C-alpha cells in the first residue's frame, strides 16, 4: 500500500467532514427546515440500526447477530444502561456463534 493512497484518503475523508461542519453554519432555518432538522436523528439512527444489522455475512452470522440485537433491544426497552446493552448483545451473539459452530 503506497503512502500516496493513504494520504489521498486521509485528505479526502477530512475534507468531507469539514465541508459539512463549515458549510451550513450560518444558515437560519425556516419552519419547514426546522421540522426536517428535528427528524435527522430519527432517520439517521434508524438507518444505522438497519444497515449495521443486515451488513455482510453468512446466514448464521446474520441470524446470530439478529439474536444479539434482539436481546439488546429488550434491555433498551427495560431502560438498561448502555454498557449493559453493549455487553449483553455481544455476549449473546458470541455464545450463539459458539453453539452454532
Amino acid at each position, binding site marked *: *500500500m503506497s*503512502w500516496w*493512497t*493513504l494520504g*489521498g*484518503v*486521509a485528505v*479526502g*475523508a*477530512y475534507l468531507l*467532514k*469539514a*465541508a*459539512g*461542519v*463549515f458549510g*451550513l*453554519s450560518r444558515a437560519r432555518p425556516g419552519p*419547514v427546515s426546522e*421540522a*426536517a*432538522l*428535528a*427528524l*435527522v*436523528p*430519527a*432517520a*439517521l*439512527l*434508524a*438507518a*444505522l*440500526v*438497519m*444497515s*449495521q444489522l*443486515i*451488513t455482510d*455475512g453468512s446466514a448464521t*452470522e446474520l441470524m*446470530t*447477530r439478529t439474536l*444479539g*440485537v434482539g436481546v*439488546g*433491544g429488550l434491555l433498551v*426497552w427495560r431502560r438498561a*444502561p*448502555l*454498557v449493559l*446493552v*453493549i*455487553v449483553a*448483545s*455481544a455476549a449473546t*451473539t*458470541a*455464545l450463539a*456463534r459458539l453453539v452454532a459452530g
Partner: protein
Amino acid sequence: MSPERRAIWVDGVAIGGAIFYVGVAFGVLARTNGWSVTQACVMSLTVFTGASQFALVGILGSAGTSAAAVAGALLLASRNAVYGAVVSRWFPDGVLRRAAVAQLVIDESTGLGAAQRDALEQPAPRARIGFLAGGLSVYVGWNLGTLLGAIVGRSIGDVSALGLDAAFPAVFLALLVPHLRTRSGLVTAGIAVGIVALVAPWAPAGVPVLAGLAAIVPGTVVRLAEAK
C-alpha cells in the same frame, strides 16, 4: 462533573471500549494485507472512519486498483459530510475549534450527540458533551486497538466470535428509542428502516444510510401536520 455529564461520558466510554476491539481487527487486517505498523496507525489517526478504512484495505486486498479503493473509501465517508452539517449547530464558533471537531465527525459521535434531548436547541450543551464523549472515546479506543492489532499481527483469532457486530446496531437502537415518542419520529424511523432494507441488497456500502435519510421528507410532512 454533574451526574448528568458523567452519565453521558459513561455511555461514550462504553462505545469507545467496544470500538477498541474493532480497531484490533482493523490492525490485524491491515498487517495481513502487507501494511506496516506505521501505515496502519497513521491511517487510523488521520482517516479515522472505520468503514472507509476497512473498505480501503478490503478493495486493495482483493486486487482492486488504488483508484477504486480510494473511491470506495470516500463514498463510505460521504455520509460524514451530512453528519458535519448536523454537528455544526452544536459548535457554531471558532474556526480552529470547528476544524478539530470535524476530525471527530463519525457515526458514533454524531449519534451520541443527536440522542441528547437538547440536540435541536441552540446552545446545546448536552449534545456537545455527547458528541465529544463519543468522539474522543472512540478516537482513543480505535487508535489503541489499531496499534495493538498491528503489533500482534496475525496471531489473533476470529474477531467475529466476539459478537461485536451485534453491539453496534444495539447501541444505535438505544440512542434511537427516545426519538420514537412523537408520531413524526416514529414514521421517519420506520420509513428509514424500510428504505435501507430495500437499498442495501444492491447498493454499494455507505449508500443505504444516505438513502435512508430521505425518510426525513415524509416525516417532515407528518411533523408539520402535528404542529397545526
